[in-house]
């Protein structure tokens, strides 16, 4: 920087300070606090840089970005091929799939309604039939998107004192897992036809409802979870600890609720192959119906499901540490990147405590330097 003229009133500013010859650093948390000068107080560049950095790119928004594949139909040879593909997908595959789906529904209700009404007394038999029907219906669903699912690892068995956790990309995660094993699941109550299905069918496999916006809800849900895992006859419980759909390239923080039930936690990792279709359900951008239609007009839904080794709370480990350990396992298996954000930040603002933390660090540093 060029030299600057100084007037008599500000001559003190040009007094050579040793600090000016040392490498510059921020006013935030340093090991050896130095004297406080006006320049240090005015220099808010670290805080501003953090803010600008967040505006330009942030790890939270990246988790919910749908990655549309590069259009490959851009030249004279590929475009007609692509058009042919569209015709096949919308004109041939879609009607076939829709027909399969409707047929499946008819068969399902034809079995479910009689079983539900007639076998009211014989609970064990009724539940067995309903469970099988639900598994069948899920298989029909998977067939309706030409789902190619590869399951790795031992199939979940029906025992008490275990809970299954998986990463969450779309509600179809549940369908894909359900076709192999009738899980009980904890879900957010949805409106529309999904809500109707939740109420009627999913009740039979044993579901727990929660409401994100209810604060007291958390304790009630925690109690219901604990009761469920202890029941011998209950279906194994499936929980998506992220609490929201993430785009299958990242994982957000796991909520600790599933990890403090005092039982085995069996991780499941799910990874979708993006080449065929992006299975991420961006619930803010499209309804579930539109999402399903998109899947039904794609070539296929290809994914891998890994059933990982059951984990237990280690002595001296907190529930949060346990959750992070399991998240590490799932992220490593499915090739996902971890971000340190709570998925609920999609719906709520961050807690002011985070800002207060920063303020505290800054204030303590200033006071420490002032005392010198």
């Amino acid at each position, binding site marked *: *920087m060029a030299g*600057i003229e*100084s007037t008599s*009133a*500000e*001559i*003190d*500013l*040009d007094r050579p300070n040793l*600090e*000016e010859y040392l490498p*510059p650093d*921020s006013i935030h948390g340093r090991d050896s606090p130095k004297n*406080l*000068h*006006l*320049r*240090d*107080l*005015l*220099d*808010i*560049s*670290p*805080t*501003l*840089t*953090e*803010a*600008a*950095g*967040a*505006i*330009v*790119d*942030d*790890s*939270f*928004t990246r988790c919910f*970005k*749908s990655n*549309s594949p590069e*259009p490959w139909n851009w030249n004279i040879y590929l475009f007609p091929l692509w058009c042919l593909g569209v015709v096949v997908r919308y004109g041939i595959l879609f009607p076939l799939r829709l027909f399969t789906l409707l047929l499946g529904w008819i068969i399902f209700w034809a079995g479910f309604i009689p079983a539900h009404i007639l076998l009211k007394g014989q609970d064990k038999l009724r539940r067995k039939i309903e469970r099988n029907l639900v598994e069948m219906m899920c298989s029909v669903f998977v067939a309706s998107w030409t789902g190619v699912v590869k399951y790795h690892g031992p199939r979940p068995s029906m025992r008490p004192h275990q809970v299954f956790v998986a990463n969450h990309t779309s509600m179809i995660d549940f369908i894909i897992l359900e076709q192999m094993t009738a899980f009980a699941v904890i879900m957010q109550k949805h409106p529309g036809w999904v809500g109707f299905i939740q109420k009627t069918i999913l009740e039979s496999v044993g579901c727990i409802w929660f409401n994100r916006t209810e604060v007291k809800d958390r304790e009630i849900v925690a109690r219901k979870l604990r009761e469920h895992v202890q029941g011998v006859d209950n279906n194994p419980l499936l929980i998506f600890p992220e609490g929201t759909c993430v785009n299958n390239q990242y994982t957000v923080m796991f909520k600790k609720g599933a990890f403090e039930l005092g039982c085995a936690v069996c991780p499941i990792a799910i990874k979708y192959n993006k080449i065929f279709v992006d299975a991420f359900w961006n619930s*803010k951008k499209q309804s579930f119906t539109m999402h399903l239609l998109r899947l039904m007009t794609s070539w296929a839904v290809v994914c891998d499901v890994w059933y990982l080794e059951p984990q237990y709370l280690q002595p001296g480990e907190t529930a949060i540490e346990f959750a992070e350990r399991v998240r590490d396992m799932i992220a490593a298996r499915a090739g996902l990147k971890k971000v340190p*954000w709570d998925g609920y*930040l999609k719906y709520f*603002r*961050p807690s002011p405590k*985070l*800002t*207060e933390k*920063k*303020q*505290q660090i*800054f*204030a*303590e540093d*200033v*006071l420490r330097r*002032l005392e010198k």
Partner: protein
Amino acid sequence: MGNSSSMLTQYDIEEVQEHCNHAFSQQEILSLYNRFCQLDRNSGGFVSTDEFMSVPEFAVNPLAQRLLRMVDGLNFKEFVAFLSAFSPRTTPWQKIEFIFKVYDLDCNGKVTFDDILSILRDLTGSFMSEQQRQKVLAHVFEEAGLLPDSSLGLSDFIKIFGSSELKMEVEVPID
């Protein structure tokens, strides 16, 4: 999301580049446009306060409210100009000018003791009492040879920052 860069013509990019004094390359401007469209969820042509606050990393920043006053409702061209202070291509003087603007909330070209106190309040919250803040500020003002009622202009800021380096850069990711 789709290929939103197709909505920005070469002419648009050059206009934006002019406006920010070539602080960003054309590639960076394209990236910033994608980011702008991503933040502007309701496609209103500008990013609202709510949309900025939905970025948790931004919302937890102690100076978020202050910056929102400067950046709320800007169109893309102005948005890039705002961010240009953080480009490695801008001079330290331009960066100091940006910092000055953050302090000079009423845009009268002068930063007073109270203006600096206000920012100190944002940065320290409830972890310093008002008395402590005033004491700190009075102390550094005195040490710098300034009276408590003096107001600082941009040239004073430049003198105060002196020749020490200012690290104020962000990297625009180019995909």
